[in-house]
């Protein structure tokens, strides 16, 4: 089994409030308004809140009515998880240009393994500069970068960096750097955080100064891990991902097929089968190839003349490839360019065997894997496309968008008209 590539030196790339930043990037001027993203689930609560909205008292988790009560100029945005995933996948692909070892942690947070990169770029500052260059211009002002030994040190450095800047922790200086950091940088729940503060432990140094056994006795195995992180004893390496081998799905017809509709149908089936392949989990398809073995035999079917006197002909075949601009796990989007090519340059004979290959992949985020882990992935992306298509059709027919979302405003109100409201829905 192939080992995953790892790197002990890590650069952390963090874009806080990544989904909100994606929205600001595609809606000009949005950053100048107090803004909130609605939660992707059906609770209709706020998910992410801009700093302007925060200043008005709006917080994540609030209901729409609470938020509106605090900030009348608040702009609410429907979430578009597929777009955020695609944007993050392109960021990960760009980071792969700098280092082959890239690990995605969550939307907007990734680690780049930098072992050996000093031979290419030079000092850590140069490596950080190279990473910054791969980040898109819209994300550059908000990205925070950290560099150090192990993921935790790199993460703490990034979390302490100012927007658009980087903190580099030199090798051997990890303990001193971590000692002055607040305990909030540790991966702990609010109850543990409160307990530590009640014990007057406010920095990693204060935690690390306690005996390891005492912390373990108080907080269990999690406490032991927190202590070791705070003391700089844990330096988890960045774990890159190995791109999967090509995934192949094939179909042999009982009788050679020439009808394009039938071939298109067979193509849909092959794509669905290949998408379900376990190796595809967590990956988006970037390049795809469709080939066909064409009907052959001793005779040339095109002119009907006997070819028995000729030299044996090679097996005839047909091949098309497509590079997807946006890597995807949605069957319809993979099929679209192939079907276009199938129409434009169809096979020159009847097809005996049709073979589909996914030949290149783009990594996804952990959130993406929630979508992509199974058919739910493709289903969600397809549902979004179908909604967009339906909305376009409605707009064309009635000249205005008549789609709305029903949101809870004051569901407890005794006045029926106060309970729910409609907001424009533009998928």
């Amino acid at each position, binding site marked *: 089994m192939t080992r995953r590539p790892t790197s002990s030196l890590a650069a952390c790339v963090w874009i806080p409030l990544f989904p909100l930043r994606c929205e600001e990037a595609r809606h000009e001027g949005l950053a100048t308004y107090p*803004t909130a993203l609605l939660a992707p689930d059906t609770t209709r609560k706020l998910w992410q809140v801009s700093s302007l909205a925060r200043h008005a008292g709006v917080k994540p988790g609030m209901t729409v009515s609470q938020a509106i009560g605090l900030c009348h100029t608040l*702009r*609410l*945005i*429907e979430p578009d998880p597929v777009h955020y995933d695609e944007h993050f996948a392109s960021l990960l692909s760009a980071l792969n240009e700098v280092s082959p070892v890239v690990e995605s942690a969550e939307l907007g947070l990734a680690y780049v393994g930098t072992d050996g990169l000093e031979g290419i770029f030079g000092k850590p500052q140069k490596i950080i500069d190279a990473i910054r260059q791969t980040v898109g211009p819209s994300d550059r002002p908000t990205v925070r970068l950290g560099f150090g030994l192990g993921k935790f040190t790199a993460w703490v450095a990034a979390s302490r960096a100012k927007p658009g800047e980087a903190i580099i922790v030199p090798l051997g200086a990890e303990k001193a750097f971590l000692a002055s950091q607040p305990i909030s940088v540790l991966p702990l729940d609010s109850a543990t955080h409160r307990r530590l503060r009640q014990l007057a432990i406010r920095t990693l140094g204060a935690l690390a100064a306690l005996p390891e056994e005492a912390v373990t006795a108080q907080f269990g195995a999690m406490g032991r891990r927190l202590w070791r992180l705070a003391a700089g004893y844990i330096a988890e390496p960045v774990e890159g991902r190995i791109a999967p081998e090509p995934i192949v799905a094939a179909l042999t017809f009982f009788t050679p097929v020439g009808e394009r509709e039938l071939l298109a149908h067979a193509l849909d089936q092959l794509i669905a089968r290949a998408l379900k392949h376990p190796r595809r989990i967590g990956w988006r398809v970037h390049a795809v190839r469709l080939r066909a073995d064409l009907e052959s035999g001793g005779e040339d079917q095109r002119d009907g003349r006997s070819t028995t006197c000729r030299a044996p002909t090679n097996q005839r075949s047909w091949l098309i490839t497509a590079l997807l601009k946006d890597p995807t796990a949605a069957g319809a989007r993979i099929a679209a360019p192939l079907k276009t090519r199938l129409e434009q340059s169809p096979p020159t004979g009847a097809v005996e065997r049709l073979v589909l290959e996914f030949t290149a992949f783009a990594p996804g985020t952990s959130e993406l894997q929630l979508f992509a882990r199974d058919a739910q992935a493709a289903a969600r992306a397809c549902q979004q496309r179908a909604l967009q298509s339906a909305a376009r059709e409605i707009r064309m027919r009635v000249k205005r968008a008549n789609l*709305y979302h029903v949101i809870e405003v004051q569901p407890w109100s005794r006045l029926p*008209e106060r309970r729910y409201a*409609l907001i424009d829905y533009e998928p």
Partner: protein
Amino acid sequence: MVAPARAPLRTDRLRAVNEPQPVAVELSADGSPAAVGRIGGSEDGKIESINETWRIDDEWWRQTISRLYFEAMLEGGKRVVLFQDLITGNWFMQKP
């Protein structure tokens, strides 16, 4: 610049659901509604029975809302909810 795929949703674009619709109401001798018709529309019908009555007094700290609700059955079996705004005296219909 490419137009954004989705416009941001502003709170001033929120539309209330189930807004009260003004109606004309004919009262019986005891002051309860006897017939209802939509404003500018056709007669909805005579009221066969009043099933339930309740009153809502709310938002006295802002702009007082005071309503007397009637859940009524029209001739033909249609169920409607009417209320009289006790501040203005106007009648409205609202989905139950």
